[in-house]
């Protein structure tokens, strides 16, 4: 119990919660003496306390890798990741264990992010046990968590497969909240969910942020989702951040050609407005094509 309380009265701080400077991530190639695969190039982001940074991009753009690098699940080749003033780019497992009180994760797939062989209670108690919390206290905390994410308390003794996708994602969120972290990396947490479930889970994320002041690094491929939940948005393309700024600006009036394409590509649920958007998109594509041709001609 004590560990959780300590977190809440931690010294209050100035400056951003998380800073990523010139981050480079490379995966060694499978082939002998081949060049390593560069997943991220020169990434710079910051996240303030209680702030949500939305990370949007297509598959393979490196947005998930960035989240994993912050969590220590991807190899940091260059640059620096600073969390609360401490360099965590190459944190050891022991440092990670301390860090896990403040830095947590919710993964995309609620079906594989929970161990199918463990009961919900055991899954939620795991991070508490790592921090040395006593069993009775842990049990109480697990009940609080289930309540916080809107699950019945009898869920403790049930297995993940007895729950629907949305409910499992609630369990995953509860696990991330267990230690009252300061930053949660959310890796496409609503992509696998149905529309109405997605809406409720997004509500839950917002409510939790309102109640606890947690920050999110919110990774998604869906511009609408990112616009809805983020204070600021960064757009990734081919392993680089091509644009970042306030959510309203980036998701409504983007500057980078890719973001412009992305915005007009997402269909709206009305036939006539969608027809308009389709026409806009074709016009944009034509303009961009001409621009690249001109650039090619000049070069």
């Amino acid at each position, binding site marked *: 119990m004590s560990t959780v309380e300590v977190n809440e009265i931690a010294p209050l701080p100035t400056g951003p919660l998380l800073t990523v400077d010139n981050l480079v991530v490379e995966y060694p190639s499978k082939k002998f003496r081949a060049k390593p695969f560069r997943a991220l190039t020169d990434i710079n982001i910051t996240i303030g306390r209680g702030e949500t940074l939305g990370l949007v991009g297509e598959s393979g753009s490196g947005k998930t890798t960035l989240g994993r690098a912050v969590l*220590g699940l991807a190899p940091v080749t260059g640059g620096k990741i600073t969390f609360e003033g401490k360099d965590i780019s190459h944190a050891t497992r022991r440092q*990670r*264990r*301390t860090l896990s009180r403040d830095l947590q994760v919710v*993964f995309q797939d609620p079906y594989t992010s929970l161990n199918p*062989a463990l009961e919900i209670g055991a899954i939620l108690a795991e991070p508490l046990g790592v921090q040395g919390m006593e069993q009775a206290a842990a049990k109480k905390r697990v009940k609080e968590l289930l309540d916080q994410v809107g699950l019945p308390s009898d869920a403790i003794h049930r297995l993940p497969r*007895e729950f629907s996708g949305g409910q499992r994602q609630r369990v995953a969120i509860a696990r991330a909240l267990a230690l009252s972290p300061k930053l949660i990396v959310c890796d496409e947490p609503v992509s696998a969910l149905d529309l109405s479930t997605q809406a409720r889970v997004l509500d839950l994320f917002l409510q939790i942020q309102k109640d606890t002041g947690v920050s999110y690094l919110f990774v998604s491929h869906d511009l609408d989702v990112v616009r809805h939940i983020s204070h600021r948005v960064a757009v990734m393309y081919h392993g680089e951040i091509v644009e970042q700024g306030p959510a309203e600006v980036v998701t409504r009036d983007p500057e980078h050609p890719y973001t412009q394409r992305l915005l007009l590509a*997402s269909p709206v649920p009305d036939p006539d407005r969608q027809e308009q958007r389709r026409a806009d*998109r074709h016009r944009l594509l034509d303009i961009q094509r001409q621009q690249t041709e001109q650039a090619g001609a000049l070069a």
Partner: protein
Amino acid sequence: MSDSVDSAAVAAPVRTGQSGTVVRSTVVRRLLRNPMGIASLVILGSIALLAIFAPVLAPFEENFANITKTLAPADSVNILGTDSAGRDTWSRLLFGAQLTLLSALLCAGVAIAIGLPAGLIAGYYAGKFEAVSNWVVSILMSLPGLIVLLTIRAAFGPSVWISMVAFGVLISPSYFRLTRTAVQSVRNELYVDAARVSGLSDWSIIARHIFSVVRAPIIIQTAAIAGVAIAIQSGLEFLGLGDPTKATWGVMLSEGFKNVYLTPTLLLWPALAMALTIGGLVLLGNAIRDALEDGEKIKHRKKKVHAAEDAASASASKVARKTLAAVEAGTEHHLVKVTNLGVGYPQADGSIKKVVDDVSFHVDRGEILGIVGESGSGKSQTAFSILGLLPDNARIVGGTIQFDGNYTVAPGDERVNQARLSKLRGKRISYIPQEPMSNLDPAFTIGYQLVTPMVRVLGISKDEARKRALKLLTDVGIVNPERTFNAYPHEVSGGMAQRVLIAGAISCEPDLVIADEPTTALDVTVQADVLDLLRELQQRLNIGVILVTHNFGVVADLCDRVAVMQNGRLVEEGSVRDILRNPKEPYTQTLLASMLEGKTPMSMLVSSQKEPVA
């Protein structure tokens, strides 16, 4: 407002909740319900009991020899007779069981002690340890086992224990490989990542999250290995390489073989004991495997119960098919007409779980119908019943499907009429799947996979088909058709693969295309391109399309009419503008209200209700 949605979502886990809480006990129960499992457990159990109580049960010491009574037949003192040295066969059999079983356990124990940890480490950490241990394993596996055992016997003397330890080492690679493969398959699971983020040490992760995966295969493997160990050990002893001062089944077998012409029964008893034990172990392994595999055999049980009904309905439908050759009058002009369709799956208790219930709609030529719904709404099942691609155990429980004036599911049919549909599928009805990559065979080039169906369905030559395939690839917006034609599926992107599948779907000039979430797996920008392509092709070829999707944006982009499904029922149908702008049903309203487009950022979406459980 969304009561129905919530109750459905909440009800689902409650229903499954009761059956699935206790996992391990169900495995044991299933094992005991299996006659093979019971038989093997009884055999092995009694042999083990006999071995444990051998000192009590055996009337004589294992080496007590009565030289006046050699090779005696069975009598009241020596119930199985005596051997050439006058030793009691029954007593020796009991003591032999002790030694044989213990040595088999020792062998399996040594193999597990080496193979399991090595496999766990190699699988979890990969890297250098895995490389080195792979070399060691390869060397161990290439050693001729019997010769090594003979050498060891020559060096260390005829001890059962030493030879079994050596054999355990020799056989440990099988555990190593088993464990490593199992661990590799879960190493990158997200729950292992989550445990890492929680700061769990590697050892805790292996013990908590990874060991549970290898437990079952290890148990099964051990049953098999113990059997092999008994066979090998007895084989060595049969060759006369055993310890003659110890009674084991192998030594007895060897003894019996020497006197096979005088007293054949001496050979029979140890052979029988070994056959029972090894057979029991093999059966036990199989039974455990069956118990672990989720094998509720619904189909067979169902057949027995409903055999009579099936026969009755089959004959009834035969009659129906004869009398109902034509379809409902006045609906022939519809390309597809689905009337009151119901699809269900037989459950273990004999009931039928309906996944599609009383669904009716129609599609005309040149029209795009969107079927919208959340997961579990039955939208894909409806599409699959039109295609005739339902799983084997699915039943049509009601209603009809007609395609272009003919029934593919006639009134009273329990299954889709495959004979009729297989003529239509590919030629007049085609399919665009959700996962483009898993719907292309990685072993063949894209060109081959486009050409073969055309040659078969359209009956044209290969060259002709090749020309058409290249034209189709150009039509679906592929810039370099020649290169894509010769490429293998893994060499193209997801969007490209979906274009290839669309090319395949229109290659035989169908009248109806069924697209099941055709853009869900694609990036948004690619999705927009594929939607453009679908619209353009549909207008040019004037085909009917059934588009299954969960995305109202996609519906707005493509569809003329929309049907909204929920829990297997069709809740609302109408023109795309009516449904998207003025939905009548609360469920449709809820779905549309969940859209993020046009909402105030950071506002609650479902704020009107108290936090429900999604």
